[in-house]
C-alpha cells in the first residue's frame, strides 16, 4: 500500500466540544479555530448528537478524538469499530482523527479505560501493526496521544522513545498531552523536559492542555480543573521547542461556563505568541 500523506499542519486554538456548550456553539460565533469531539459519542446510527455535530462542522473544523480504539491490544482492532469510525470521518471530514497510546480491550472484555502499555519491542510491534491497520482502514494518517499513567512496567525504552519509533515506523502524527506528561512524570519520577526533548517535533500536530488532581499517592488526570501553573510552564517549554501547533483546552468534568475555557485558551494563545517572539 502506498504511504499515506502525513497529517496536515494546523496551528490554531480550540476547545473540546461538550454537551454543556452545544447551545453556545450553535447559537453564537465562538472564537475558536477548531473543536474536538469524542469520536465514540458520534459513532452512532443517527439522532440528535450527529445532527448537532453536522451543524457545528458547518462552522468549525472538527477533530475526532477517540478513547476506545485500543491501539495496544494484543489481539488487534475491532473491524466494527473501524467501520463506524470511518463512516463518521468520511462524513465529517475532520482535521485529525486521534486516539491514545494505550489499550482497553482483550478478547471480549472492554475496560473503557486507557490502560498502560509496557514500552517493549514486542508492544511496539503490536502497536505499529495496529496503527497500520487503522490508518489503512480509515484511509488517512492518525494522531496518537501520550496517556497519563499510574503504573509503569519494565521495558526496553522510555515512553518518548516508544512514541518516536512508533511515529517514524507508521507515519502517524503525535498528539502531545502536556498535562499527561506532567502527571506521568510526577507519578513515575522522570524529567518532563526529557520527555519533551525526546519526542520527534516533526511528528507533533496537536497539543492538549488540561487539569489534574492530587490523589492520596499519585497525580490523577481528572480533567476537572483549570490547567495548573506547572502545566503552563511545561506548555511554554513545549511550544518553544515545537513551534506553532494546534492547541486545545480539554475539560471533561465539572464543566465551567464557556467563557472560563475561552479565557484559558487566551492564556495558551498568549504563551504561544510569547514563545514565538
Amino acid at each position: 500500500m502506498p504511504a499515506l500523506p502525513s497529517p496536515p499542519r494546523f496551528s490554531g486554538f480550540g476547545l473540546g466540544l461538550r454537551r454543556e456548550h452545544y447551545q453556545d456553539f450553535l447559537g453564537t460565533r465562538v472564537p475558536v479555530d477548531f473543536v474536538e469531539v469524542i469520536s465514540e459519542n458520534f459513532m452512532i446510527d443517527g439522532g440528535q448528537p450527529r445532527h448537532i455535530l453536522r451543524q457545528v462542522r458547518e462552522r468549525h473544523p472538527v477533530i475526532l478524538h477517540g478513547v476506545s480504539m485500543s491501539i495496544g491490544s494484543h489481539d488487534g482492532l475491532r473491524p466494527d469499530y473501524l467501520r463506524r469510525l470511518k463512516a463518521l470521518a468520511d462524513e465529517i471530514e475532520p482535521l485529525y482523527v486521534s486516539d491514545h497510546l494505550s489499550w482497553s480491550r482483550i478478547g471480549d472484555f472492554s475496560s473503557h479505560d486507557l490502560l498502560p502499555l509496557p514500552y517493549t519491542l514486542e508492544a511496539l510491534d503490536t502497536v505499529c501493526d495496529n496503527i497500520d491497520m487503522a490508518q489503512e482502514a480509515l484511509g488517512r494518517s492518525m494522531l496518537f496521544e501520550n496517556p497519563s499513567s499510574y503504573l509503569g512496567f519494565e521495558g526496553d525504552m522510555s515512553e518518548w522513545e516508544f512514541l518516536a519509533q512508533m511515529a517514524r515506523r507508521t507515519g502517524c502524527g503525535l498528539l502531545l498531552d502536556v498535562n499527561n506528561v506532567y502527571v506521568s512524570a510526577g507519578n513515575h519520577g522522570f524529567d518532563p523536559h526529557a520527555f519533551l526533548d525526546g519526542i520527534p517535533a516533526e511528528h507533533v500536530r496537536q497539543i492538549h492542555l488540561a487539569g489534574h488532581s492530587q490523589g492520596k499517592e499519585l497525580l490523577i488526570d481528572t480533567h476537572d480543573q483549570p490547567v495548573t501553573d506547572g502545566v503552563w510552564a511545561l506548555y511554554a517549554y513545549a511550544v518553544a521547542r515545537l513551534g506553532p501547533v494546534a492547541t486545545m483546552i480539554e475539560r471533561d468534568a465539572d464543566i465551567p461556563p464557556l467563557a472560563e475555557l475561552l479565557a484559558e485558551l487566551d492564556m495558551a494563545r498568549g504563551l504561544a505568541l510569547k514563545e514565538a517572539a
Partner: protein
Amino acid sequence: MSLLALQSDFRSWLTGASGDAGRRLAGACDAGLRVYQNNYRAQLVGCLEQTFPCLRAFVGPDAFLRAAVSHIDRRPPSAWTLDAYGERFGETLVALYPDNPDVHELAWIEWAMNTAFVAHDSLPLDAATLGAVEWDSARLLFAPSLRLAPLTTNAVDIWSALNEGREAPEARMLEQAGAMLVWRPALLVRIRVLDRATHEALSHARQHGRFDMLCALLVERLGEQAGVAEAGALLADWIGSEVVVGLAPGEDDHAS
C-alpha cells in the same frame, strides 16, 4: 512478561481484583493498580447512573449502587462503546428484584429511550404516495427507533413523574396489561401506552410486515367492516405519528 500475559492479568485485576494478577503486574507498586480499578468501577457505575436516572431516583441511590455493583461483577463490559453497558442491566434487576415488575419496566423504558435516541434516522411518510399503494400486498416499514414491550405496571406514569422532577406515584399493577411503545419521530424520543388490542395489532403488523395481514387479524376480531375500518385507523395513526415511516411493494409486486 509478554503483552498478552500482561493484558490478561490486567483484566483479571480489574474484573476480580485477583491478588496474583496484581502482584505480577505491579510488584510493590499497588497504588497505581488501585487507581485503575477505581477508574474502571467508577466509570461503569457512572455510566449506569447516567443511563437510568429515573430508576435510580425510584429505588434510591444505595439500592441502585448495590444493583450496579452486582451488574459489574456479573457482566464485565464487552461492547466497543461504554454507552452500550446498560443493555443487560435489566437482567441483573430481574435477578435481584424478581418480584418487582415496576423496576424491570422502568429500566426497560430508560434503556429503550437511550437506544431510540441514537437509532437510525427516518423521515415521515409522504402522504402523496399513499394513493398509488397496492394495499393488498403493501409491506409496512416501521421506524428504526421503534421499541415495544409489555406493560403490567404504572411504570410509564412513574417514569413521567420522575422525568419531570415530580414525586413518583406509588407503584401498582395495571388492571389490564398493555404495552409501552418508544420511538423517535425526527429528533425527540416519545413514549406511549398501548391497550392490549392495539399492542396485539402492532405486534402482528411488525411480525408479518403487511397491511393485509393486519386487516385479516382485525376482521377476524371485529368483523369485516369494523375490522377494515380499525386497520385503516391504526395505520393512519401510525403514519401520522411516524411509527410507520414507509410502505414497500409486496413480494407479488416484485415478481411482476
